């Protein structure tokens, strides 16, 4: 149970002001959060990620980060080169629609306070993770996207998060996406730290993928090494729908991603791809969870990590196959390369299979760079760093290729290449 000091920090996180657009929802979430308490290190789910201690140490103010001065130039500079699509700016977590750009029809983007969607909080539930409850109790306003039935939105919608705080403040962001039947759309997200001050970003994103829809959500996490992020992302995938998540993590102080795909009906498909490229002291924890509830659904998962310096990675991949979910296909793979003796990875597949007729495979590997291969390339005249970079890039490329938008993929690709020191 929550100890006295935990409650202190939790209360600080929850704050006192009641500027929520959903006061009733907020106050019951507050009760839920207080009852749950911040995860202690002993807690299985957060065993390797001492998020509570990290917040205690790095967050000094606990105020809600205020809306900051943001110019259209700053926004333009944050877009990937050659980007063609719509974009929506989040200013310290709050959507700023007048700095955003909407060129396409077939979907609507509104503030949560305006549309007051009934589905809000129905996908990512407060009781599941205390940070979701904290978010529900604290977010001021958020974004609601509705993609109309049968609409194919050709160009991507790019969410740009600008985060800045003065002395370690808290940013809560909330997004609800409803992709209606047969619609197609892809979302992109980039989190930008405006300066090097510490902050705590607590994101909750809920997606509802209606029958036969096709959608994807690609994220680039490249925050400053003072940033603490908890991201709760959950998607309900309905009959014959396909949903794909790509998560590229390149920076931050401590990042925790809870990604859950609920495969709610037959014929649906959920894909999860992830790449974490870590250096310094960055700590990235990916907890993924795919829940197969009905027969004939498929999930694919590939997470890869390259860890340098004294960085730390955690991968926990849960595959849950319920008794009803016969003929499930579920694949999971996690591969890691450690570039330094001080880097660590904790990887754990977690399979709970209650149906008997399923195809389920998983595997994880952790190793160093293949010295034989390195020598081979050197013996062909490639410099050692080039050879290393080439091999690591080939390793990472398998994840990057799943990003659907070319400009965004190239942007991620360039950052990865720069990090790996390869010019090829």
């Amino acid at each position, binding site marked *: 149970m929550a100890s006295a000091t935990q409650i202190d920090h939790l209360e600080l996180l929850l704050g006192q002001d009641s500027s929520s657009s959903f006061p009733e929802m907020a106050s019951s979430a507050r009760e839920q959060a207080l009852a749950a308490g911040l995860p202690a290190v002993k807690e299985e789910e957060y065993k390797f990620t001492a998020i509570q201690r990290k917040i205690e140490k790095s967050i000094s103010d606990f105020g809600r980060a205020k809306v900051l001065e943001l110019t259209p130039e700053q926004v333009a500079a944050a877009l990937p080169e050659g980007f063609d699509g719509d974009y929506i700016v989040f200013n310290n977590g709050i959507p700023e629609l007048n700095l955003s750009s909407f060129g396409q029809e077939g979907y609507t983007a509104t503030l949560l306070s305006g549309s007051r969607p009934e589905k809000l909080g129905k996908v990512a539930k407060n009781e599941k993770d205390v940070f979701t409850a904290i978010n529900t109790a604290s977010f001021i306003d958020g974004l609601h996207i509705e993609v109309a039935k049968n609409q194919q939105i050709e160009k991507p919608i790019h969410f740009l998060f600008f985060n800045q705080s003065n002395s370690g403040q808290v940013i809560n962001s909330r997004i609800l996406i409803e992709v209606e039947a047969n619609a197609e759309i892809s979302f992109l997200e980039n989190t930008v730290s405006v300066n090097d001050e510490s902050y705590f970003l607590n994101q909750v994103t809920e997606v509802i993928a209606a029958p036969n829809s096709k959608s994807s959500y690609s994220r680039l996490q490249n925050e400053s090494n003072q940033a603490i992020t908890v991201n709760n992302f959950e998607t309900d995938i309905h009959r014959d729908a396909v949903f794909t998540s790509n998560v590229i993590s390149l920076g931050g102080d401590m990042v925790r991603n809870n990604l859950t795909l609920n495969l709610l009906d037959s014929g649906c498909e959920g894909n999860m791809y992830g790449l974490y490229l870590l250096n310094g002291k960055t700590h990235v924890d990916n907890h993924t969870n795919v829940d197969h509830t009905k027969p004939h659904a498929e999930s694919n998962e590939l997470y890869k990590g390259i860890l340098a310096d004294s960085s730390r990675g955690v991968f926990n991949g849960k595959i849950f196959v319920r008794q009803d979910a016969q003929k499930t296909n579920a694949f999971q793979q996690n591969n890691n390369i450690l570039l330094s003796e001080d880097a660590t990875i904790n990887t754990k597949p977690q399979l709970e299979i209650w149906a008997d007729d399923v195809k389920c495979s998983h595997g994880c590997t952790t190793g160093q760079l293949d*010295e*034989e*291969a390195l*020598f081979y390339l*050197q013996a062909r005249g*490639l410099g*050692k760093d080039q050879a290393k970079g080439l091999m690591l890039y080939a*390793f990472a490329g398998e994840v990057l290729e799943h990003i659907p938008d070319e400009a965004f993929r190239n942007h991620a690709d360039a950052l990865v290449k720069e990090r790996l020191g390869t010019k*090829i």
Partner: protein
Amino acid sequence: MLTIKNLHASIEGNPILKGINLEVKAGEVHAIMGPNGSGKSTLASVLAGREEYEITEGEVLFKNKDLLDLAPEDRAREGVFLAFQYPVEIPGVSTTNFLRTAVNQVREYRGQEPLDAVKFLSVMKEKMKLVEIDQKLLSRSLNEGFSGGEKKRNEIFQMAMLEPTLSILDETDSGLDIDALRIVSNGVNKLKSAETATIVVTHYQRLLEYIVPDFVHVLYNGRIVKSGTKELALELEEKGYDWIKEEANAASV
């Protein structure tokens, strides 16, 4: 071109090469034969710069430079090429993928202009013909799922692209059928000139009918215990290695 003097090398404290002496001049072809485990691949790897081996004694001069002092990539740039006995698989990296950078790094070192994409492609096409290799193979993950013959052809293709002065072919003939053997040997022969030299490591006299050696050496237990002309290879084919081993063992008592 290459002078090896009293070379000793060990791995994890086990001496493998125990005093190799060899002189290779431009224009020459040397064959190195010898029983399994005698140190042939070790010698080839040491020349190419594999770091696992510790050189405990001796020296190697290549074009009057201390070869052992150079990083593997610089040896390649100086003109040493090793065709691997067991070419390594590298997932996600294709031959075309790394070879242009490799070729241009080598060219830069040699003071030559880099090849642009168009020129590179045309050189590649020409060299592909030489070893009858398919472009599709070159854009697949290196050596992953390649047949034995495809791997060896790809080695010789890369050799052709890198234009080495000293080529060391470590059992490039092993596992090749007669057609593939002819193709590979043809390739090697076309790349030979008065300025280049070749060391072929092989178990089979058969190869030496295609790539005719000026000298044949027998490596046994980390030393060259016998040298001769191409007739020595015929004799070995006929009589095996036992008589050589006996001679060598008698001499070392």
